[in-house]
């Protein structure tokens, strides 16, 4: 594998010359080694935060939703904000693996595994909120249409919340199998490399008896394509449906036909930002600079600029339509967002989402890793505010001024939200410890891209 020829037009996706074996080793050795100190610290903090979050949720379920800061006017706030926030983050992974697969974007191979894992963990965090936001979560199984003793009382298929149930569960399970199918060859590699009998057994079970047979590879590639084909509309549908929670309602600020594309763009925006955040950490911690290259980071920055501008356009369009519609409630709602008691949330959103990505026009800035890291976090903060603005400021002043009210979160909501970060990072740190964090087989398959063998 020595003496690779380097293309003049494109840079190879794996910049340094490696053997396939070296690739395997560099990526998979983490799984064999004892956990590093930094990993242990990160993991412990995450697990601690997760535990705190879970205890808080336990307290909330035992006592009642009243421990949150909601009221008769504002029935949703942090709970659904966090839900939409996490669902949004959960979009980039599938998008990277599915859409980019269909478009044959080979650079995706280095990041798709982690991004997909992130998707699943984010969707798990998201799914938590609809569960715990219910007044009687122990009865939530009623949302499934199963035969029952109540004269077969079914569910309301007209409810966007029910659409959510189907959309989120479909998305979660399809993402999960998609991700897991992709893992099979790599798990087999781990299984065959490891010396430990225990690992051999565990990865043996997990790898489904994969042996690299080309008959299987053939079906496998078709399967990936099919799943990618299904996941692409799916990923668009999920945030579309989430946006319909609001778009199909009558509340000014919610009742907006622009929501589906606006939400999807926002989701990609926030998802890519989160992928950036995570991968910047991971490539540093695991020394994967060779696989997750500056090219990847730049590409993602460009996606962020584009989606950020789409989101900005959506903000402008919303405002324009509210004025143009002549509907006094709509008009008031949007003026209230910008100038009402929650003006700071609105302007935080604008600053973080529309202004901050503009820095990425400059190549200097978008190749400055600490800067990119900061902006990626800023974008996520902005996207959280976007959902908060949509949900809370629309609700707090709707039609009848007599019911106008204010909202502020309690410690329970704050800790629960932080707790989901605990869940997310606990899962993520576990993932990079026990599963191949980069799709080894796929990296190998694109290793020769823009590089010719002698």
């Amino acid at each position, binding site marked *: 594998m020595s003496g690779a020829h380097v293309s003049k037009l494109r840079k190879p996706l794996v910049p340094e010359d490696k053997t396939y074996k070296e690739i395997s080793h560099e990526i998979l050795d983490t799984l064999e080694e004892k956990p590093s100190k930094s990993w242990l610290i990160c993991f412990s903090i995450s697990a601690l935060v997760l535990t705190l979050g879970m205890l808080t949720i336990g307290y909330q379920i035992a006592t009642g939703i009243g421990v949150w800061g909601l009221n008769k006017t504002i029935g949703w706030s942090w709970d659904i904000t966090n839900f939409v926030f996490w669902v949004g983050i959960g979009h980039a992974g599938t998008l990277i693996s599915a859409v980019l697969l269909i478009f044959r974007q080979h650079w995706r191979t280095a990041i798709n595994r982690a991004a997909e894992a992130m998707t699943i963990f984010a969707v798990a965090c998201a799914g938590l909120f609809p569960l715990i936001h219910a007044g009687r979560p122990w009865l939530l199984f009623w949302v499934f249409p199963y035969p*029952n*003793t109540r004269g077969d*009382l079914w569910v309301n298929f007209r409810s966007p919340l029910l659409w959510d149930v189907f959309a989120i569960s479909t998305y979660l399970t399809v993402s999960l199998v998609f991700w897991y199918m992709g893992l099979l060859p790599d798990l087999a590699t781990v299984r065959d490399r490891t010396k430990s009998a225990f690992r051999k057994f565990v990865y043996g079970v997990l790898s489904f008896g994969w042996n690299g047979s080309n008959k299987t590879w053939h079906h496998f590639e078709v399967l990936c394509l099919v799943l990618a084909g299904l996941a692409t509309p799916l990923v668009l549908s999920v945030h579309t449906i989430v946006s319909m929670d609001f778009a199909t309602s009558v509340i000014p600020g919610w009742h907006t036909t622009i929501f589906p594309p606006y939400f999807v763009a926002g989701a990609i925006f926030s998802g890519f930002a989160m992928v950036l955040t995570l991968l910047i950490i991971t490539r540093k911690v695991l020394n994967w600079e060779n696989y997750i290259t500056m090219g990847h980071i730049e590409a993602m920055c460009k996606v962020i600029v584009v989606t950020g501008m789409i989101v900005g356009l959506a903000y402008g369009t919303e405002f324009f339509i509210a004025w143009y519609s002549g509907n006094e409630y709509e008009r008031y709602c949007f003026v209230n967002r910008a100038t009402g008691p929650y003006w700071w949330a609105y302007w935080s959103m604008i600053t973080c989402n529309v202004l901050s990505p503009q820095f990425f026009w400059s190549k200097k800035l978008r190749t400055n890793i600490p800067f990119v890291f900061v902006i990626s976090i800023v974008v996520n903060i902005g996207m959280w505010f976007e959902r908060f603005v949509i949900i809370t400021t629309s609700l707090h002043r709707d039609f009848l001024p007599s019911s106008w009210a204010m909202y502020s979160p309690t410690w329970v909501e704050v800790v629960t939200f932080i707790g989901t970060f605990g869940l997310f990072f606990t899962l993520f740190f576990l993932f990079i410890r026990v599963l191949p964090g980069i799709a080894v087989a796929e990296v190998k398959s694109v290793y020769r891209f823009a590089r010719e063998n002698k």
Partner: protein
Amino acid sequence: MKKFVGALVALLVLSGMGAYVIVQARSLGSNQGYAPDQPVAFSHKKHAGELEMDCQYCHFGADKGRHAGVPPTELCLNCHSKVKTNSPEIRKLQNAVDSGENIQWVKVNHFPDFAYFNHAQHVNVAGFDCQKCHGPVEEMEIYEQHESLNMGWCISCHRDNQIAPPEDHKSAAGGDCAKCHY
């Protein structure tokens, strides 16, 4: 071929298990057939069957109001102050009235309190026989819950008997949730 047979068997076993779970789940919480021992060995068979007493002689609330009611102990003594006064079971009644310590009957038909049921609606207005819901009480030595009394059971009857009200009463509203739940 073997694979197919195996898969088929597995499928059959799985669907069988599923069906079993569904059937079991559907009878969950139902108390059908519940026939507890009562503190007084009262026989509906004797009173309602052989003696052909009218149900509403004792359960006089059934025609008038929400509850059919367990009859006041004094009511039993209308007859039993003369009839079979020596029976130890009857003496329990007399003792109860004398001492003021009431007899604790065991409730058989249990309705959850989120479901409103009105006897008068069914007995007086719809004109149903008691047996329609309570089964052949006149044959029961020990009274038992004859029907499942779950919502599906209520609903099936409400569907079958879209009770035609007298001309002027309009909507029987037989299927509305708020017929029972409020």
